[in-house]
């Protein structure tokens, strides 16, 4: 039936490394299921499939770097693989074993597994009480999101992207490494320690091999990417950023408009809300700024969309890209989907989630490709203003500087107010400075009524 190819995860991506398969031949997959993790030069991204079917063959082993569009797996319609599917239908046919949870497919089990859900506790709504994907999803929603407790065997090992890459580079299976990080997550140091432990006893062997013959390179099951060291990783990311930004500056005639916004209403409202809340539910100014940015995009829709084939394609939804700086350096701009319709608390959770995943976990394909407008928010330690470079194919970028207390004249009176300098970089092919000005005016307006955000 179909081929599953290396997807393009952003305008700057030309090739990617297949990090991990989440399915195996014989697994039934449905459109939207996450089937693989792909490493771009910027982040580890979870990639879903686009059709229903059965995995017929995995063409590319983990660790392989391939160009965008290269086939990664073949999917069949399931008819070709009845042998694999056979055991599952057999299970519901045997009512003698009611204790055994009936699970529709390996994928459902996998889903439950990764969500940290015990399938036997899930109420099955399928035929004969079979637990379906929807049941797991429902259970997943019912369970509090982070489940950073002791990992069930076979559960995906928490590890930073850096640690994953290091493990890959060193040819070490990440799930064999004992994690010493928060919640048992695997750190780079853990991987190095595991590598050292592996190498230490094997040294004599290696020497022996060396002495014996040049006949066999050590089992090349993992195709190690050309770039190996952290310095090379960093160079790859700089190159990816450089290529995208160069393209932006080459193709997009940028214009810039700037305004300074009084944040005293927004911040005092937020402080008031936060004092009544536990730490875990507190808001940060960025959440208010992002929500206002998303709503302002709805007010000036010609800034929200893509420049494709010499014309502007507006988007009905606002998927707000958020530029996240990575440590020690680098940048990735995943999108908070539907940021304009999320309530403030949900957006705050989404922000924390996406920033955490950008830095230490994984992003999803849609977050990398579907952003319709991006905000770069310099935050507390940043400069006072930023004139940003637009992420193609988007047509505008909002820049927010550090919140600064400034003398503020209002109604003939002078007072000290917390302010933010907001800028809008616009694509002159799509709009003029007038649109940018209207956007910033809308942003200002929204931030004066924080309770409506």
């Amino acid at each position, binding site marked *: 039936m179909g081929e599953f190819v290396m997807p393009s995860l952003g305008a700057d991506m030309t090739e990617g490394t297949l990090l991990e398969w989440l399915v195996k031949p014989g697994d039934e997959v449905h459109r939207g299921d996450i089937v693989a993790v792909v490493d771009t030069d910027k982040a580890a991204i979870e990639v879903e499939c686009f059709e229903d079917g059965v995995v017929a063959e995995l063409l590319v082993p983990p660790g392989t770097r391939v160009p965008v569009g290269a086939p990664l797996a073949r999917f069949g319609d399931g008819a070709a693989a009845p042998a694999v599917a056979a055991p599952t239908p057999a299970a519901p046919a045997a009512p003698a074993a009611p204790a055994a949870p009936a699970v529709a497919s390996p994928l459902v089990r996998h889903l439950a597994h990764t969500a940290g859900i015990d399938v036997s506790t899930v109420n099955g709504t399928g035929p004969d009480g079979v637990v379906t994907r929807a049941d797991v999803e429902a259970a997943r929603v019912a369970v509090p999101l982070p489940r950073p407790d002791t990992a069930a065997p076979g559960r995906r090992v928490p590890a930073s992207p850096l640690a994953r890459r290091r493990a890959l580079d060193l040819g070490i299976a990440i799930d064999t490494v004992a994690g010493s*990080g928060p919640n048992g997550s695997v750190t780079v140091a853990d991987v190095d320690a595991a590598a050292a432990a592996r190498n230490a006893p094997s040294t004599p062997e290696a020497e022996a091999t060396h002495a014996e013959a040049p006949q066999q390179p050590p089992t090349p099951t993992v195709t190690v990417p050309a770039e190996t060291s952290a310095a090379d990783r960093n160079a790859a990311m700089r190159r990816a950023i450089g290529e995208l930004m160069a393209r932006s500056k080459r193709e997009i005639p940028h214009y810039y408009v700037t305004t300074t916004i009084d944040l005293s209403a927004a911040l005092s409202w937020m402080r008031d809300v*936060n004092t009544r809340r*536990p*730490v*875990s539910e507190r808001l940060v100014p960025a959440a208010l700024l992002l929500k206002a940015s998303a709503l302002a995009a709805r007010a000036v829709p010609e800034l929200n969309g893509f420049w494709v084939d010499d014309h502007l394609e507006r988007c009905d939804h606002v998927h707000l890209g958020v530029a996240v700086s990575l440590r020690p350096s680098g940048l990735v701009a995943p999108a908070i989907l539907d940021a304009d319709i999320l309530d403030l608390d949900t957006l705050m959770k989404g*922000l*924390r989630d996406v920033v955490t995943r950008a830095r230490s976990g994984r992003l999803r394909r849609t977050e990398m490709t579907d952003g319709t407008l991006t905000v770069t928010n310099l*935050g*507390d*330690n940043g400069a006072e203003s930023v004139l940003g470079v637009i992420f193609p194919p988007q047509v505008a970028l909002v820049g927010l500087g550090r919140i600064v207390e400034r003398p503020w004249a209002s109604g003939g009176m002078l007072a000290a107010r917390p302010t933010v300098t907001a800028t809008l970089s616009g694509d002159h092919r799509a709009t003029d400075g007038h649109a940018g000005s209207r956007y910033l005016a809308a942003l200002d307006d929204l931030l004066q009524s924080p309770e409506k955000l």
Partner: protein
Amino acid sequence: MNPTEATAAVAAALGSIAPEVDIATVDGDAPFREEMDLDSLDFLNLVELLHDSTGVEIREDDYARVGSLTTLVDYLVSHSPVATGA
């Protein structure tokens, strides 16, 4: 909670937020958010982690009072349930 315990809790929390930074190299009297390049979300995570590990909830109004590692440790010690309850 004594200063040693509070220092350990801070080191553990910061270690999980910014694992690449060696806490020992951070000047105890310097503004650590700048030194360690922690943004507002990082700081919120820190406050949350410390609340979980020490039981001390740093009020938002008090954020300005915990700008250095020294003042943060002092805050935890003086607000710990044991210290005030004893």
